[in-house]
């Protein structure tokens, strides 16, 4: 009778040791998840919020030149132009080109000054799939302009 009691006590101790070990493992796994979340690129909405802050972007007045259908997502030519006198008092400070469907939303950010003379830039981007391209212009008076264009992508260009 006494022997059986002893066994039960042991079992319970073992159970306790096992339980705390499991808890420790759970903590480690939880931390790993957190670390992964930090390494992940920001979402499109987070990127927009970071650029705009509290401000709201006005639609239009920004010209995005993009093909309607991009056969190869590896190199999609584009140009972005904003009509601006580019004087000290009134100029475009930056143009941001963002993607809604790529693994990382920012494609490029371009900075201008009155010395640029014209707020226009052309380059080539990678597109993973059919998606909207959003461009935001930051003006010297603190306002923002926004433009949007849809591109159909036949073959995605992000490897994988």
């Amino acid at each position, binding site marked *: 009778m006494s022997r059986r009691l002893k066994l039960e006590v042991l079992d319970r101790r073992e159970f306790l040791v096992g339980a705390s070990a499991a808890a420790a493992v759970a903590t480690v796994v939880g931390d790993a998840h957190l670390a992964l979340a930090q390494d992940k690129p920001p979402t499109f909405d987070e990127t927009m919020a970071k650029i705009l802050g509290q401000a709201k972007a006005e639609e239009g007045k920004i010209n995005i030149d993009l093909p309607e259908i991009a056969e190869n997502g590896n190199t999609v030519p584009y140009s972005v132009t904003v009509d601006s006198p580019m004087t000290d008092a009134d100029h475009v400070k930056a143009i941001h080109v963002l993607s809604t469907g790529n693994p990382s939303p920012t*494609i490029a950010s371009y900075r201008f000054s009155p*010395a*640029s003379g014209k707020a226009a*830039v*052309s380059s080539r*981007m990678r597109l993973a799939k059919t998606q909207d391209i959003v461009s935001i212009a930051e003006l010297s008076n603190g306002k923002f302009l926004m433009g949007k264009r849809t591109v159909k992508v036949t073959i995605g260009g992000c*490897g994988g």
Partner: protein
Amino acid sequence: MTTKPRIKVPDTNKVGDVIEVKTLISHVMETGNRKGPDGNLVPRDLITGFTATFGGKEVFRADLTSGVSANPYISFFFKVTGAGDLELTWTGDKDFKVTEKVPIKVG
């Protein structure tokens, strides 16, 4: 391994002209998201910055990401304030740095 970037500017310019500068540089622009033939991720290797200065003054700057195609082509504009050198610098991962000077002729 790096080859000389290709840069095109107009041959003749006048003071006050706004001219287009076209640039092209050879670079893989490896995103860091892609797996190589061995199944491991290919490490990121990007050009992340491009600046253009004229007469010591910055006229244009770009922050590039993995969303930019390989062999980045960038075309931008700047206002000619006189004859001088346009200095273009590309910087990136793995201590990548290339600087080119382009004479801007006036007259």
